[in-house]
């Protein structure tokens, strides 16, 4: 595939608001996880909650879209001047030539959960003002971003659970390649809700404490929330220096089980292989891998086998979910931003909370930050239903020099 230039990017997560705060959190090795006290959830688990979401106010014209998920989207759009820069580029290309591709797993379902608690005792009806289209539906997020930025081009929500906002990069790339659009806003937003908190608990996949990816006694994941956005254009020859490029995207299906990965990570391996192939690179060109690394025993084991099969044990890798938690449908976008920051800063973030790396997992897992010039990094995202995606990012100066 032709390289894409990630011209602007930003994120809002438990790590902080915007690129600078995210980079500072990664540099300091600070975990943003804390015991769950989210809106009445009675669960023994830790979460990564974004501070200040409740205080966000949507623009008056979009007040009907008000919900935690769209507030989190708005919070991220306001960071690093993303919305203003996006509007400048929309003016440059024309609103019909800009696509919007958003990933989410639960959109604004938190509002529906609340509405169900407020059902009419006689009729069972939801309370007045419940906004299905603008809040609950999976497209509500994409519709919100589209209206907030003022685009009129193609738009879609990709909803493949925890790979949703990685796959948006691949979908946007296809539409750019077909010349249906000249630019794309891609990203992902998922916000805390009881559906995912109690759902992962029911599958016994949540850790009682902070998640410890790749630890020998890891015992589950820590759910978090986040929003991440990126502005994509064809790279051409404009990008330079520390500009960030998307060189390849790879997708695959496990065809194995709805909520467990293939034990050998066969699908994960095919997705990584496909990303390398799309970029016309091979395994030794990758300097660092940002793992999916949720911290569940089976996920990490399968991913480690897949990474080892393709890369051996030499490539440094880590999961940043010990710091940020698992932002589910927003994880791909958040970790794309983390990869971009890592490339620019020459920083491989060490995996947090991991006290004793699992020696049976045959990868070079970093437990402390490491500084080194990075040219190309890979980001993994794997979702329920066996929906896998791997993205290969590079610095423009490294991509040019081959």
């Amino acid at each position, binding site marked *: 595939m032709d390289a894409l230039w990630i011209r602007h990017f930003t994120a809002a997560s438990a790590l902080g608001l915007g690129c600078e705060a995210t980079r500072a959190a990664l540099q300091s090795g600070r975990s943003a996880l804390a015991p769950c006290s989210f809106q009445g959830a009675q669960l023994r688990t830790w979460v990564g909650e974004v501070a200040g979401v409740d205080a966000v106010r949507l623009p008056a014209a979009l007040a009907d879209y008000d919900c935690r998920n769209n507030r989190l989207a708005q919070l991220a759009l306001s960071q690093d001047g993303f919305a203003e820069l996006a509007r400048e580029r929309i003016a440059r290309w024309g609103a*019909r030539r800009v696509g919007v591709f958003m990933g989410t797993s639960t959109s604004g379902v938190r509002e529906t959960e609340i509405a169900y608690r407020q059902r009419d005792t006689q009729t069972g009806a939801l309370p007045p003002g419940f906004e299905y289209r603008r809040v609950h539906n999976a*497209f509500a997020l994409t519709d919100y971003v589209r209206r907030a930025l003022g685009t009129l081009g*193609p738009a879609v929500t990709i909803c493949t659970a925890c790979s949703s906002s990685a796959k948006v990069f691949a979908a946007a790339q296809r539409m750019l390649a077909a010349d249906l659009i000249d630019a794309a806003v891609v990203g992902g937003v998922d916000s805390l809700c009881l559906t995912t908190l109690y759902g992962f608990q029911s599958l016994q996949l949540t850790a009682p404490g902070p998640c410890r990816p790749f630890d020998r006694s890891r015992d589950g994941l820590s759910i978090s929330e986040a929003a991440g956005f990126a502005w994509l254009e064809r790279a051409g020859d404009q990008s330079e220096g520390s500009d960030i490029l998307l060189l390849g995207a790879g997708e695959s299906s496990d*065809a194995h089980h709805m909520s467990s990965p293939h034990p050998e990570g066969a699908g994960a391996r095919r997705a990584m292989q496909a990303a390398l192939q799309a970029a016309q690179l091979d395994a030794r060109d990758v300097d660092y891998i940002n793992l999916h690394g949720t911290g569940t025993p089976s996920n990490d084991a399968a991913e480690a086998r897949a990474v080892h099969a393709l890369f051996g044990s030499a490539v440094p890798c880590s999961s940043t979910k010990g710091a940020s938690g698992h932002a589910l449908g927003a994880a791909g976008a958040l970790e794309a931003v983390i990869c971009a920051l890592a490339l620019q800063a020459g920083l491989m973030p060490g995996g947090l909370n991991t006290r004793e790396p699992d020696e049976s997992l045959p990868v070079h897992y970093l437990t402390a930050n490491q500084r080194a010039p990075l040219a190309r990094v890979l980001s993994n995202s794997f979702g329920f239903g066996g929906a896998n995606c791997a993205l290969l990012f590079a610095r423009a100066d490294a991509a040019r020099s081959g």
Partner: protein
Amino acid sequence: MLSAQILGVGVLGPGLSDWQSTAAVLRGEAPYTAAPSVLPPPAALPPAERRRAGRMVRLALGVGAQAVADAGVPAATLTAVFASSSGDGDTCHEICLALAGAEPAISPTRFHNSVHNAAAGYWSIAHGCQAPSTALCALDASFGAGLLEALLQLRCGAEAVLLAAYDVDYPPPLREHRPIPDAFGVALVLGAAPKGGTGLQLAFTQEPASRLSDPALEALRGAIPAARSLPLLQLLSHRLQGCVVLDYLPEQSLQLQLTP
């Protein structure tokens, strides 16, 4: 301009049980008789998964299996695009009901069935399909968004793609806010090679969507987002060269040209 060959079709909906009989109705050779949708059990799934599959999964796998059989291609190699405007309303309702109770709890099966890509996951398991798959939503534009994604997959190297677009009705109280009357699904197997099947070309347009002259079918088209595909299916049923416009996003529609 995006293009493909239509190699196979599957349809399930109110009073519509397969492509052959639906094509006869769309050609006006048989009357349209509305009746509740009948969704077959997903025979291709292993027994454990079959028990867990709800109506949305049965619908998606049902139309997908019809289209693959019609095309005579192996399902295992198809890139798959699953498009649903509203997800699994039954599962969402059950979860929200359980969470509103005094002691919130969710069943594990219900939780993994709640993901929008549940049908894509079950499809890949049923047919051993390891090719890329996606699950998307664009509210009432979901069929158009799915068709676009399927054609883009072909443009970017996939040899053949399964597109399944499907919607199931919500139970109350969500039903009042999303009044989908019944289940409707459509699947197309689309090929890249310019041989076999019916040629399809897609372009954006500002024209309004084509309508169906039969009032009951037109009502179905308007009521269920996946049924926005009906004008395309009608043209396809006549095996004639021609052009239809399908609803997509409010700002633009999709113009589709067929060449048998």
